């Protein structure tokens, strides 16, 4: 792609960047630089200021102090329009796509075609008419070149999270960004997709582009990047060449203490069956079969992991159990009660917690405060509401503050609107809420997506603790490492069916990988 393309980008310097939010110093005199051809990783705990620093670079936020130099010239951007014009691109942690528009239309948003010549008519034309057909063609070429498969004509709302991510990457590629910021691009991708992405990113770096890569997954950072800069509490801890880095060194730089990556785990003490599904079928958002005959059981005191490539029915599986999606056939039983297509309210009252995959849509109400979101599921309990009516703001605040301490959630205040928290902190709050009601069954969908290693460690410990307390846990994760680490039993899902079951002790990773890709399907049946 890049051959013959004359790239302007030489280097970027950010010097002494300061950004103050109400109650939070998000960036505290941060220095940062990227060279052409370099992939530079930005590491740090949730709320360390990574996204903020990048949003400043991209022109979304204005810094209070410091300077940004692109190729030694000041980048005085007042909005992304300016930075995009100078070749900066950003892929956000939370997608910025319009759900009702198609992939092509989303790419076309904000694009302006080059006028064919300098005449007034063609300038006017290029400003007022978008040739969607041409955009579509170029898009298809691009997605074939980089092996980013996505149907250009599907509306965004029909796409899985992973597919939406691909659209975001395509959009940045389409705009020809030379300095590309990727804010946790892999959080939603499958291992195979991550490998594909890395090929593209390396190719882009070889072309002479600069790449900034944010991730909480240390092995990715070590695998992909050339240099690593670590932030903590808005300050730059230091930079290190990737060849000198190990997981342990990085973790300690980030958290300020050594982090454990393996847990000693007692064998599961399996109790009675708590949750079971019999031949459950359901339809996906796209109208295609989402689940086609799924049966399984989760016992008290065990973690059952569901491994699989994104979009193979994981979302439907979780939503059917939580009562948010209709099961068109089969039955779901929890705690010896039939909950097939029961109201979410009833399912919840039985003691089933659900940590949703799309926390920004399903897990929180963006314009509500942190405290309001914390009590969302329990707002009627006597503890939070006198006579189940008048809200006890002091109690709510106390409980929320306790959760904030326990889960180390970074927020200026309990009354802060939750949408201003960093992604990982939102996830922690959802988790805190879901575990606070002492549930018997926990459905955890991507529970550590976008969460920093310190917090992952904590969340994993919590899940294992719940398991040892006799809870039945269904862990749905596209992060195979996580499933292998925590699950006592692993079910592999492919095209809406379980194609294999593996016991913790008999795991052969290659086998699971094959099943996830669908090749073991026939042997299974």
């Amino acid at each position, binding site marked *: 792609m890049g051959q013959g393309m004359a790239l302007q980008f030489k280097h970027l310097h950010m010097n002494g960047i300061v950004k*103050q*939010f*109400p109650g939070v110093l998000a960036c505290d005199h941060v220095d940062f630089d990227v060279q052409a051809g370099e992939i530079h990783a930005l590491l740090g705990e949730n709320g360390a200021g990574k996204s903020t620093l990048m*949003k400043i670079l991209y022109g*979304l*936020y*204005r*810094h*209070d*102090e410091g300077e940004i130099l692109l190729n030694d010239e000041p980048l005085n951007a007042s*909005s*992304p329009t300016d930075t995009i014009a100078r070749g900066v691109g950003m892929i*956000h942690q*939370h997608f*910025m796509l*319009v759900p009702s528009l198609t992939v092509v239309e989303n790419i076309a*948003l*904000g694009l302006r075609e080059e006028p064919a010549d300098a005449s007034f008519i063609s300038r006017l034309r290029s400003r007022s008419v978008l040739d969607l057909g041409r955009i579509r063609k170029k898009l298809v070429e691009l997605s074939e070149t980089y092996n980013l498969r996505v149907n250009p004509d599907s509306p965004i709302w029909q796409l899985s999270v992973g597919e939406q991510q691909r659209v975001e990457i395509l959009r940045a590629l389409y705009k020809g960004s030379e300095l590309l910021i990727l804010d946790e691009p892999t959080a939603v991708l499958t291992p195979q997709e991550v490998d594909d992405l890395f090929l593209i990113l390396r190719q882009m770096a070889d072309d002479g582009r600069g790449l900034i890569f944010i991730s909480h997954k240390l092995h990715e950072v070590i695998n992909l990047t050339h240099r690593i800069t670590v932030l903590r509490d808005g300050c730059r801890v230091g930079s290190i060449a990737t060849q000198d880095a190990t997981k342990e060194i990085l973790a300690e730089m980030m958290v300020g203490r050594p982090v454990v990556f393996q847990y000693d785990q007692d064998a599961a003490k399996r109790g009675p069956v708590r949750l079971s599904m019999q031949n459950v079928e359901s339809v996906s958002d796209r109208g295609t079969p989402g689940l086609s005959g799924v049966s399984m059981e989760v016992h008290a005191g065990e973690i059952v992991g569901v491994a699989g490539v994104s979009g193979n029915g994981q979302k439907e599986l979780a939503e059917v159990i*939580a009562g*948010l999606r209709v099961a068109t056939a089969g039955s779901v039983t929890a705690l010896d009660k039939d909950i097939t297509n029961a*109201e*979410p*309210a009833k*399912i*919840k*009252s039985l003691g089933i917690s*659900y940590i*949703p995959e799309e926390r920004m*849509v*399903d*897990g*929180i*109400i*963006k*314009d*509500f405060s942190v405290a*309001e979101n914390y009590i*969302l*599921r329990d*707002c*009627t309990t006597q503890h939070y*509401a006198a006579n*189940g*009516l*008048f*809200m006890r703001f002091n109690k709510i605040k106390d409980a929320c503050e306790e959760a904030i301490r326990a889960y180390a959630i970074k927020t200026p205040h309990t009354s802060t609107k939750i*949408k*201003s928290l960093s992604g990982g902190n939102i996830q922690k709050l959802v988790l805190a809420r879901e575990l606070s009601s002492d549930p018997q069954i926990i459905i955890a969908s991507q529970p550590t997506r976008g969460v920093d290693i310190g917090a992952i460690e904590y969340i994993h410990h919590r899940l294992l603790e719940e398991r040892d307390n006799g809870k039945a846990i269904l862990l749905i994760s596209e992060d195979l490492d996580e499933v292998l680490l925590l699950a006592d039993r692993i079910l592999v899902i492919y095209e809406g069916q379980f194609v294999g079951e593996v016991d913790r002790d008999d795991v052969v990773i290659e086998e699971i990988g094959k099943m996830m890709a669908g090749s073991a399907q026939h042997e299974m049946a």
Partner: protein
Amino acid sequence: MQAQTRLSWGWLQRLADFFPVFIAVLLAVITSAILLIALEADPFTAFSEMLGGAFGTENAFAETLVKSVPIMFVAIGITIAFRGGVVNIGGEGQMIAGALLGAAVTLGLGESVGWLVIPLALIAAFIGGGLYGAIAGFLKAYFDVNEILSTIMLNQVAVQLMNYLLNGPMLDPESAGMNHIPKTARIAEIAELPRLVIGFGDNALFDRTRLHWGLIIAIVLAVISYILLWRTVIGFRIRAVGQNERASRYAGFRVKQQIVLSMFLSGGMAGLGGAVQVLGLQYRLQTDGSPAGFTGSAGFNGIVAALFGGLNPLGAVPASVLFGGLLVGAQKMQRELGVPAAMITAINGIIVIFVVSSQIFIQRRMQRRAKLEIAAVEKNKFEDTAQETG
């Protein structure tokens, strides 16, 4: 330098947010002025008459308040519905439903229960308007019927039902058979809401005006509604559903019931507004047969007042007074200048159109901004607050 750019940013931002409303008012005034000039009336005299007519004298102000009372009730109700994510355009119909039931109870009880007839009639009116609103809520929640359409159609149904009842079963026996106006009998004196007088003796404010206790009821309800929305679990759930149905459903709220509930409360408020017109002002239920014959369009004006009031019940109170002033002032202007009566409706309509479209404009602009760069919006907001605090 850096600080300066930030400052000017915040200013621009704030100005831009209010700009549409100012522009809207300005455009409305200009458009009205053109209409007035076309009618050979002096726009300056016209607008000063209008202002004086609304707030110039004690009596004028009292009339303004009288006019604003039903608008206030509806606006409070609309606020609840909108907060719950339901676009209730049925204030007219819900007012009528409340007034019909309230009047029926008042007339049926007569003097038999003494002053207790007032609370009983008001409760009946609340239930009447509430159930009428709940119909649209039910249709939306369970059959996915667009509430804007259903509430507008239910307005028509209510008007025709009232016309039928006031020409037949509920017709005042004394005027039956003659070339009558559709109206019920006069209510018992004990059922009348007392006149509202502030202070004692000769200096008392609003002595000898038509202002009644409906105003106080409305203000109390505004406070109660505020508490309901922001201090109780009921309001918490209503607002949650209004903001994010999916998250609410998953949090275990019965979303369908919440929608019906917010429409019930919303309609109930409008219903009270209808009954208060009967008990406090007209002392009977009467209409001229036209759609706004009884309500005076308070059911529609309440929507604008609710938006004006920032979808906050407490804001609905002053917003309604402003709106009442507009109506009364326009009447005065029409009398003084001798322009056709239709001019009032025209000016009101113009103002409503401009203000509502400015609201839509603001929303669109915010959505567009949000769509393009969600974060950019947050940034501006926080920079504003950062300035205020720091």
